[in-house]
């Protein structure tokens, strides 16, 4: 530091420590509550010494909410969204940065606008689209008169229908349809020196080869950052999976938490609820702790 400030330093340590305690306390409370038996967890005040029923509660929560398959679903969804984002954003950014076709600015703005409206606010119509993902195309055919034409010519009535409710693609695809990653790549591609492109072209590399052999290996850091952020974001989705998984087989771990809210009547089983909460919060927490560097980097880069 610039000068000696013993009083301020003391104050700094105190405040930061209080912040640390407030930040960590809910995790600790959840873990401790998950280790108590039914009577102890409802004690006022609850004992902060861990009880002995930890594994029993974890097991009960695991079977009550059927968490095994649900965690797998969560994992498939999160990995799918992360992979989809990493790949599709890279392709789009490459197209926007490295080509000069007419309508490029329009495409740029079309993608940019999607940053503004999160899935939550257009949830009702998106649900309708996922119920029949081809309905937009059917409507276009109907309006342009093409389906009438096809019916006249071939005698086949056009009715396109493909429902994605209760499917992994229905879970994943709408979550990929935003621009978050595209701009991360775009910023990075713009910093790649032009000389590199020139050299590659001189050596006879086409667009595809340049993209795969030069650009993608260079963007490894971006991919890790974007992948981490998107994995967490998708894992933590709640409203979307809640809506489109009417069937239990595709429900995710986060939506299953609702099953564990204690009933109003009787003694609330908070120990079970907290054990379930602990299981659901653990995977993203592990990702944050292990991938901290990428997480922070991705967080700052995707928003700016």
């Amino acid at each position: 530091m610039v000068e000696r400030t013993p009083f301020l330093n003391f104050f700094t340590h105190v405040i930061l420590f209080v912040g640390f305690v407030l930040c960590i306390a809910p995790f600790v409370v959840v873990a401790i509550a998950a280790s108590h038996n039914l009577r102890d967890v409802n004690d006022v005040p609850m004992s902060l010494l861990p009880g002995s029923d930890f594994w029993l509660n974890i097991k009960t929560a695991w079977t009550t909410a059927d968490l095994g398959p649900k965690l797998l679903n969560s994992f498939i969804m999160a990995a799918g969204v992360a992979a989809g984002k990493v790949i599709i954003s890279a392709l789009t950014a490459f197209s926007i940065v490295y080509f000069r076709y007419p309508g490029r600015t329009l495409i740029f703005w079309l993608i940019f606008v999607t940053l503004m409206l999160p899935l939550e606010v257009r949830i009702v119509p998106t649900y309708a689209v996922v119920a029949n993902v081809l309905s937009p195309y059917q409507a276009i055919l109907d309006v342009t008169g093409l389906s009438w034409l096809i019916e006249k010519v071939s005698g086949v009535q056009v009715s396109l229908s493909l429902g994605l409710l209760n499917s992994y693609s229905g879970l994943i695809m709408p979550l990929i349809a935003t621009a978050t990653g595209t701009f991360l790549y775009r910023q990075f591609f713009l910093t790649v020196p032009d000389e590199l492109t020139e050299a590659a072209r001189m050596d006879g590399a086409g667009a595809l080869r340049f993209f795969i052999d030069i650009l993608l290996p260079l963007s490894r850091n971006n991919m890790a950052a974007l992948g981490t952020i998107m994995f967490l974001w998708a894992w933590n989705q709640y409203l979307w999976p809640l809506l489109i998984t009417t069937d239990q087989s595709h429900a995710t771990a986060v939506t299953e938490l609702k099953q564990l809210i204690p009933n109003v009547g009787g003694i609330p089983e908070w120990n079970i609820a907290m054990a379930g909460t602990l299981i659901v919060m653990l995977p993203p927490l592990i990702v944050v702790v292990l991938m901290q560097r990428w997480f922070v980097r991705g967080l700052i880069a995707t928003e700016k």
Partner: protein
Amino acid sequence: MEKRVTFGSWTIGILFAVPQLLLIFTFFYWPAGQAVYWSLTLQQPWGGGNIWVGLDNFRSILANADYWNSITASLVFAGISAGLAMFVGLVLAALTDRQLTGSRFYRVVLIWPYGIAAPALAMAFRFILAPEAGFMAVVNQVWPGFWDPGLDGTDAMASIIIAFSWKYVGYNFIFFLAAFQAIPRSLIEAAAMDGSGVVRRFWDIQFPLITPTIFFLLVINITESFQDSFGIVDIMTSGGPANATNLMVYKIYSDGFKGLDYSGAAAQSIILMVLIVVLTIFQFRFIERRVHYR
């Protein structure tokens, strides 16, 4: 900024953009257009298509006291939780930036809450703030009836604000810390040489230099409070008691999927979309220009 060296082939270039364009057309532009269409029409009870009703859906929503209550609740929630999360994040970041022993440790730990799913932390806080067990029960023993989010609207609102702020303190902390660390050390040292103390340096140098970050985070926190609140509300209060925590996204969900009033829900979505777009444009156009020191 543009590239000087590009590739010639138009077709390949457009092909690269096609997957993204298909996705955003199907899952973004079409639903957004659909929302506009639904908001201007009314679904017939016996099927047979929608009838055009113009702005009637908006009129009936805006005449509905429940809806205004929901807007008020959302704004109160957005204002207080953004203020709280940003203030705490700012203080913690400013103190961590002093780089005393242990600051690296805080830098690591304080981000953890942001990784947690909103419903999971809502569950944790539902227990911590429960009136009959957990920790507020202790307070209730001393002052009976002091705290009951199940019956008292203010208590319920306070609970969801606490849960949301807890998550977003870490988020704001990261951005504030990055902003503080981007300030050249030489500026601070020069000011110290001229005899200004820590507080003076904060208000006259650091604070003005991080105002862009403050405004940026303000917009993000408010828009996130509209979206990310859904899981918290659904787990902690289900919009109750007596609609005290019936925030806008939650109301859209319950009207659209539980009440099956697609037209009303669509009209509400449109209002929310406009609100968010205005906020975003405000951020890009107005704030970015007025507060720029680089």
